[in-house]
């Protein structure tokens, strides 16, 4: 088993700080509320380190990266300037954790469709993805912060 795993262990060391990032965004979701909504997704990086600088949903209002934290049962939400995406790492934006706080747009989005989400990375540049639009009462899968 050890000899089998050795090549994989070696592979995981391949991405170093100078290597360009190789980023994919999966499960993008925008959960809407009357005042805007929240964006969630998973960033997987198969290359060198990067940073997520901005996340926007053009069809909606101003957006910023926030992080929810729990402090003795008290929910606190804070603005985060940028999020480090480590080399060969995965960063999740999920309920009760990091999320994109999005203001309401001119016209409200309808649950069930998709909307464009733009993620701007320091090195990888702008990445566009189609996010599933979900109502506030939609998928209620809670997450332990």
């Amino acid at each position, binding site marked *: 088993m050890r000899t089998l795993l050795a090549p994989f262990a070696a592979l995981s060391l391949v991405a170093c700080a100078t290597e360009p990032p190789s980023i994919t965004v999966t499960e993008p979701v925008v*959960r*809407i*509320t*009357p*005042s*805007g*909504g*929240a964006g969630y997704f998973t960033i997987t990086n198969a290359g060198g380190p990067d940073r997520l600088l901005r996340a926007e949903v053009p069809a909606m209002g*101003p957006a*910023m990266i*926030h992080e*929810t934290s*729990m402090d003795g*049962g*008290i*929910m*606190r*939400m*804070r*603005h985060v300037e940028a999020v480090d995406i480590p080399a060969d790492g995965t960063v999740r934006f999920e*309920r*009760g954790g990091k*999320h994109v*706080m*999005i203001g309401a747009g001119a016209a409200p989005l309808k649950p069930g469709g998709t909307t464009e989400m733009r993620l701007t990375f320091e090195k990888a540049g702008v990445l566009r993805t189609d996010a599933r639009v979900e*109502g*506030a*009462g*939609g*998928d*209620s899968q*809670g*997450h*332990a*912060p």
Partner: protein
Amino acid sequence: MSLRTLRISLWGLVAVAALGLAAYFFLGRATPTQIEATPYGAPFVLTSSDGTRFDSAKLKGRPHAIFFGFTHCPDVCPTTLARLAKLRKQLGKGDEAFDIVLISVDPERDTPAELSTYVSMFNTPVVALTGTTNEIAAVTKSFGIFAEKVPDGAGGYTVDHSSQVLLFDRAGNFAGTIAIDETDPPALQKLRNITDF
């Protein structure tokens, strides 16, 4: 007995003790006999999402789950409300089993109309209440709820607040809380406890 086996058996004991403690907390707490009938919160009159005044006496005789939140909260509040709606469905006793009560901690922005639009998104009956800043402050104080306005980093504000759901039985007695990071099975058991008679 070698040191190694002694170490292993000691760790075994630690594991057994930890399991026992976990069982006590997760199972013991959920049994009806463990729930203390403590008076909690003071009677209140607030404004409902339909614009009418809502007296907490209306909750008498109805099990209810009170959650403090606000409509501009994009992450935790909708997650909690949607979860309560889901748990009420799973309970299988209909929407009358217990009332879901949302009390706004952002009375400045949460007008009755705003609340009404908000709760309509959950496709389940929710009693949504707001009031004047003073009325809300009195209610949060009496329920021991922390709520504080903080800048959101873009010229607006957000409200840090206690996130637990407060449970009350039919007699209006405080019957525990559901924490945000609690898994569904114990949460469902607690709701069963306040709705079983």
